[in-house]
């Protein structure tokens, strides 16, 4: 956990009072809606179909139990008793009243949470691996650098009115859980031959109307140069990124139009002129940030405690453990993923009561720390293995022990037409229906790892392009239709999915997905060949044939 100091607290409080003044001026008519729109977006407030939606930042997906309790409080006091965790490790509330927003922000500020730059054409929440700091094999904790970037990008005087939104993601593990290749800037922490920390920097990844996988702009930028290099990229983008067409304004289009070599040359020229300036990070500054991250004092515990051995005889426990419990870097501990994908529920939602109970559980079993992953699940990063059986029971009591992490019903979905004014089609009911179709745990287990991603429009908030199966809602003559892609992935081998055939109606989507899955079960070379690998090996054609033969 990163601990705010007086300086961080002051800034957040100053931002709350500024926003309070902005809301007051809007309510009095001093600000037009057009003027206010930009200001509220800079503080995470959208106007949705039914009400204002309020998005709160969870930097690099790390929360303390007290912060989670406060999110529960906001859900209860200012909303309708629940919140929705997003693919960018944030949380959204869907029913906030404008006049009450400043108070909600003030309540959050008390525990060091803010909503700065969770929307608008500025730098968004810096996301990271939800297992940062605890994953085995990690080079070092990437959140130190994510926090440095969070501070650097917060209320940046030059980059608060960019051509379009701008997203960073950072990982320090060989296996990329942060989807860095689909971000405007993706950072892969690694060390050079001298053992110094630096970053491979990728630029121009992103989904939406024109999806691109990020391209490497520089294979190694030394840690001390991270901010100056990032500033060079952003300055080139701020000046030359397109502002004439909202769909061509992301940095990916600039990189694509210039070509990565030309873009890299522009950045290099800019960087050479400022790399030795005030942005250079000395070790002391980095260590100061590092020193304010708290790590648990782990005990020396056995690899296989008796409690776990005994519980292994309960098949229900085992079903959950196999899918939810992951190896920790410290012996005797585990990382536990908590599925927010119950059968028949909207993906990523948690009630205020669940949040409160989970905060309690985190205090008891995870040193008071909770993580949010981009898959819209939560995680407890420091669970002693001996506590796993008790933890499972506690989670089950609050409906958070669905044993489907990484399985077909662990679906990523945007809010879609049920909430969002941009959407063309509903996402949540599709997800709900699919979780019912694949509710049988044995079937889901047989299918194995399979990610379904659903977006209700081309803006791709549900990351459909990089789902093993991607579902995109479109509108045709006033009716909801869905395009289906297969073979996408968001990890270190990121790829965009391929369209399998003509779009299908709302009622047909679940049938088509079942057909695709049946085709996979028939086509896979071995039981452990993952869906995405079968598609890679065989291409789309055999799937297309089977799915559309009878349609």
């Amino acid at each position, binding site marked *: 956990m990163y601990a705010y100091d007086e300086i961080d607290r002051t800034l957040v409080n100053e931002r709350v*009072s500024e926003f309070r003044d902005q809301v007051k001026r809007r309510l009095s008519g001093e600000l037009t809606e057009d003027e206010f729109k930009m200001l509220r977006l800079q503080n995470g407030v959208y106007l949705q179909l039914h009400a204002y939606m309020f998005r709160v930042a969870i930097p690099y997906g790390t929360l303390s139990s007290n912060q989670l309790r406060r999110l529960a409080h906001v859900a209860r006091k200012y909303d309708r008793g629940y919140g929705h965790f997003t693919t960018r490790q944030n949380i959204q509330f869907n029913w906030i009243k404008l006049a009450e927003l400043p108070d909600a922000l003030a309540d959050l500020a008390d525990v060091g949470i803010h909503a700065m730059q969770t929307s608008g054409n500025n730098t968004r929440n810096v996301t990271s691996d939800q297992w940062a700091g605890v994953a085995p094999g990690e080079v070092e904790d990437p959140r130190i650098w994510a926090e440095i970037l969070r501070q650097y990008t917060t209320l940046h*005087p030059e980059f608060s009115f960019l051509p379009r939104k701008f997203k960073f993601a950072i990982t320090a593990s060989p296996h990329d859980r942060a989807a860095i290749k689909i971000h405007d800037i993706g950072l892969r922490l690694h060390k050079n031959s001298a053992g110094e920390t630096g970053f491979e920097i990728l630029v121009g990844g992103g989904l939406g109307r024109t999806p691109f996988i990020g391209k490497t702009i520089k294979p190694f930028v030394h840690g001390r140069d991270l901010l100056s290099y990032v500033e060079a990229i952003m300055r080139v983008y701020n000046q030359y990124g397109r502002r004439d067409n909202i769909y061509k304004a992301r940095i990916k289009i600039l990189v694509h139009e210039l070509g990565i070599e030309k873009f890299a040359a522009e950045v290099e020229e800019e960087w050479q002129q400022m790399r030795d300036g005030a942005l250079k990070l000395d070790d002391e500054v980095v260590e100061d940030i590092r020193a304010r991250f708290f790590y648990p004092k782990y005990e020396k515990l056995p690899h296989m405690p008796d409690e776990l051995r005994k519980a292994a005889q309960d098949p229900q426990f085992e079903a959950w453990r196999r899918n939810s419990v992951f190896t920790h870097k410290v012996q005797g501990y585990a990382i536990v993923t908590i599925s927010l994908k119950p059968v028949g529920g909207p993906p990523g939602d948690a009630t205020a009561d669940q949040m409160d109970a989970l905060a309690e559980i985190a205090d008891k079993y995870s040193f008071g720390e909770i993580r949010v992953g981009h898959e819209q699940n939560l995680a407890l990063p420091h669970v002693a293995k001996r506590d796993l059986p008790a933890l499972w029971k506690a989670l089950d009591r609050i409906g958070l022990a669905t044993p489907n992490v990484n399985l077909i019903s662990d679906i990523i979905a945007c809010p879609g037409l049920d909430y969002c004014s941009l959407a063309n089609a509903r996402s949540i009911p599709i997800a709900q229906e699919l979780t019912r179709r694949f509710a049988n745990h044995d079937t889901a287990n047989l299918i194995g790892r399979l990610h379904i991603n659903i977006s209700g429009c081309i803006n791709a908030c549900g990351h459909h392009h990089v789902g093993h199966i991607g579902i995109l809602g479109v509108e045709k003559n006033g009716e909801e239709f869905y395009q289906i892609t297969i073979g996408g992935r968001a990890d270190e081998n990121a790829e965009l999915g391929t369209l399998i055939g003509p779009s299908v109606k709302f009622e047909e989507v679940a049938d088509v997905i079942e057909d695709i899955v049946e085709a996979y079960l028939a086509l896979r070379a071995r039981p452990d060949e993952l869906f995405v690998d079968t598609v890679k090996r065989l291409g789309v054609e055999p799937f297309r044939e089977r799915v559309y033969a009878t349609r």
Partner: protein
Amino acid sequence: MPLVKGGKITDDSFVHLADDAVLPESGAVLVSAARFLQDPEALLGRAGKVGVIWPNSRDVDDLVPHLDRLAAVALVFPTFRDGRAYSQARLLRERFSYRGELRATGQVLRDQFVFMMRAGFDAFEVRKQGDAEAFAQTVKRYSVFYQPTGDGRLTALHRRMQLRHSESAGL
């Protein structure tokens, strides 16, 4: 449109000169980039001060050779959503050491004041009277800054360092 300079509302000493207007013999004038670049010497050689309104779609490089003879540069915010002039301002101040008046013009609202000052602006053609009147109060909104810019304000990172050093020195 009120002009805020030196932290308060003041009269504009510059006359905005249209491209086809006759050049007065003396007095401070503010001209378009097109008019200025057509014949910089004709403007710079006369008695009065000269300022240039520089569009946000043009590199400031073309302006650099003239900077030490310009009394003002006005950078444009066609809408407050368009932030290109922030980069231009920082380049003029921080890279090209421009010390004359740096004016923000266009859709300038109170919510941009702090950003603009941090980027190096020191004069503001403010859209709304109420915003101009609120200038002094608005720029005091923030006391903490995370990024180093040419305005010299101490960043949070360095403030922490100072605090730590003074603590360890027992002060």
